[in-house]
């Protein structure tokens, strides 16, 4: 049940390849598709096309931004993370909490109250 909710309800959480790509871009690095691919290749089985698709997904999710760079007769997208790791994690938690409250309403709110009072 938990896993199903995780997959269906929280699309903003990253896939393993997305997480690996973002780890390379954090903190505040700007990289091209090929550069990210070259760094990932020794660590895992990945194709250049997969990295390109993943970066496009991250761009659509508003996690990274991109601009065109002209260099040595070629054109490339340069990708930069929009938020640092802490800000991103905060936004994911925020999103998850909002969805829980939206789905479970007062049950979620009272759970959080109980949980945070216990921690104190």
């Amino acid at each position, binding site marked *: 049940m938990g896993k199903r909710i995780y997959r269906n309800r929280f699309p903003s959480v990253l896939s393993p390849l997305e997480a690996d790509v973002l780890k390379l871009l954090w903190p505040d690095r700007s990289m091209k598709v090929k550069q990210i691919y070259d760094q990932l290749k020794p660590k895992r089985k990945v194709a250049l*096309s997969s990295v390109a698709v993943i970066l*496009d997904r991250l*761009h659509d999710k508003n996690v990274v931004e991109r601009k065109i760079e002209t260099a040595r007769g*070629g*054109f490339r997208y340069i990708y930069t993370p929009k938020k640092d790791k802490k800000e991103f994690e905060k936004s994911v938690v925020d999103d998850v909490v909002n969805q829980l409250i939206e789905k479970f309403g007062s049950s979620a709110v009272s759970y959080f109250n109980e949980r945070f009072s216990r921690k104190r």
Partner: protein
Amino acid sequence: MQIMLISDVVYFLSNPINLAFTAVSVIGSIIAAAFLIKMKNLSSNKKIFLAYAHIFLLIFPVIFFVFSMGCTAIYNSCSKLHAIFYIAVLAGIAAFLAGIFVAPFAILRFYSKNSTLITERKISEFADEHSKKMGIKKPEVYLLNSSKPKAFSFRAFGGKIFVSMGMADLLTKKELEAVLLHEMAHLSNKASLFRQLVSITKLISPLTYFATLKKELKKEELAADGFVCRIQRASKYLNSAKGKVNKYNYIASILNPKLS
């Protein structure tokens, strides 16, 4: 003159069948335009179809009106229903033909908005060198700001080639040259205009999707591929480029159907 035109339009629209044709056509045109503007992740074929549908449905009532007002002879010689039928068919054909001439402008304008003309020396020199050898006018090469790998050409307006950023990101220099040569081959091939018309007609009328036309299109693709292999003296760069693009589309379709 203006009053005569207004009274003619009022007379034309007072007929319920004319009014129905016009209303359906205009509403359809607006819907096609709305889809084209709102749905950013449509495939190129669907965008072209919507652009043609929008233009066709917009022009149709105007041509229908012009034919209706001009065809008094037809009204005299056969029943009103016959006249309306023939006028509708004639107007449809005229709108379709007008669309074929107008749509390339609209499509080109649509893509140009998201593109920049490449003035970079190496690419410019490459296009210049090979266009001279091929005996064609030097095409303008545009960089399309899109992450999806695509490349296409327009023979109209002196020849334009569009290559996306996604293509530039995925391919090596030699692979990109192979793609440019492939598109230049399409520009130099006189059958390319036929290819564009067939692919556009196919979108509007499924009845024109004959096997013989498909064969002609495939022949032209193979001719363009053959041209690239002759110039580069190898097929590996073009094959590699196609492989990367196919892989991208396959992965995109699995991870996110919207991206494909």
